[in-house]
């Protein structure tokens, strides 16, 4: 059964989605990731979607689910690399992905994770500015 590789870098799990996933593959990823977070006691999850040309409501919900589930397992999730066309479309679609922290790329995503791991009490729940 095909699946998406999950890399472990220290206490962060890195997932790079490079294929146009069909629904079952997405569900498998969700499950695999949850298992790995639990089994490795990972503290952070970095999902790189820079190769995704389309993110529809199913994938959007998957990302939200992963963020929620990892939080329950005491890990932070950051989604990085969303393409402009995808961001514009998601906003129009009405998917705000509340609860999912985002960063521009893997580097910045890692910075964000490390910052939150260092001082979790100082960060707000979803990392966005409350103004």
């Amino acid at each position, binding site marked *: 059964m095909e699946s998406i590789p999950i890399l472990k870098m220290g206490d962060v799990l890195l997932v790079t989605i490079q294929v*146009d*996933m*069909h*629904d*079952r593959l997405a569900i498998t990823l969700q499950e695999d990731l949850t298992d790995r977070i639990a089994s490795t006691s990972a503290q952070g999850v970095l999902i790189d979607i820079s190769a995704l*040309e*389309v*993110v*529809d*409501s*199913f994938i959007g*919900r998957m990302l*939200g689910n992963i963020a929620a589930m990892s939080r329950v397992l005491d890990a932070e999730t950051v989604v990085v690399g969303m*393409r*402009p*066309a*995808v961001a*514009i*479309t998601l906003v*129009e*679609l*009405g*998917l*705000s992905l*509340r609860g999912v922290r985002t960063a521009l790329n893997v580097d910045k995503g890692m910075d964000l994770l490390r910052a939150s791991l260092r001082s979790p009490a100082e960060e707000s729940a979803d990392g966005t500015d409350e103004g």
Partner: protein
Amino acid sequence: MALTKDDTIPVHSSEDIVWVRQTVRTWAVELGFGLVDQTKLVTAASELARNTVDYGGGGTVQLEALNNGVHRGLRLTFEDHGPGIPDVELALHDGYTTGSGLGLGLGGTKRLVNEFEIESRPGEGTRVCITRWK
């Protein structure tokens, strides 16, 4: 209005949904749509294809490349003979879908296209027709 290209593909499985996305993307590129418009159309197609599979028991999508003299366009007609949508108005309402994991994503999908038509009769099936003009 000239119809320059016409094709119908089956939509029964989640692999079909991926195929629909890729086919719509190819057609949109051929018709000269910009990247953002392509993405909106492909995403809309993905939403409707998924509805057809998940709620319609499978069906078809007809792709039509259009030309109305000034603009080129792409029309997609999703059709199934499933249980139908009892309350179309409700399904179009945004609250039906956002974030809750339920719902058909119709309100959002409507915003991604220029023309949106839906016909549904409980017990007979559903037909959704979307068009995006360049």
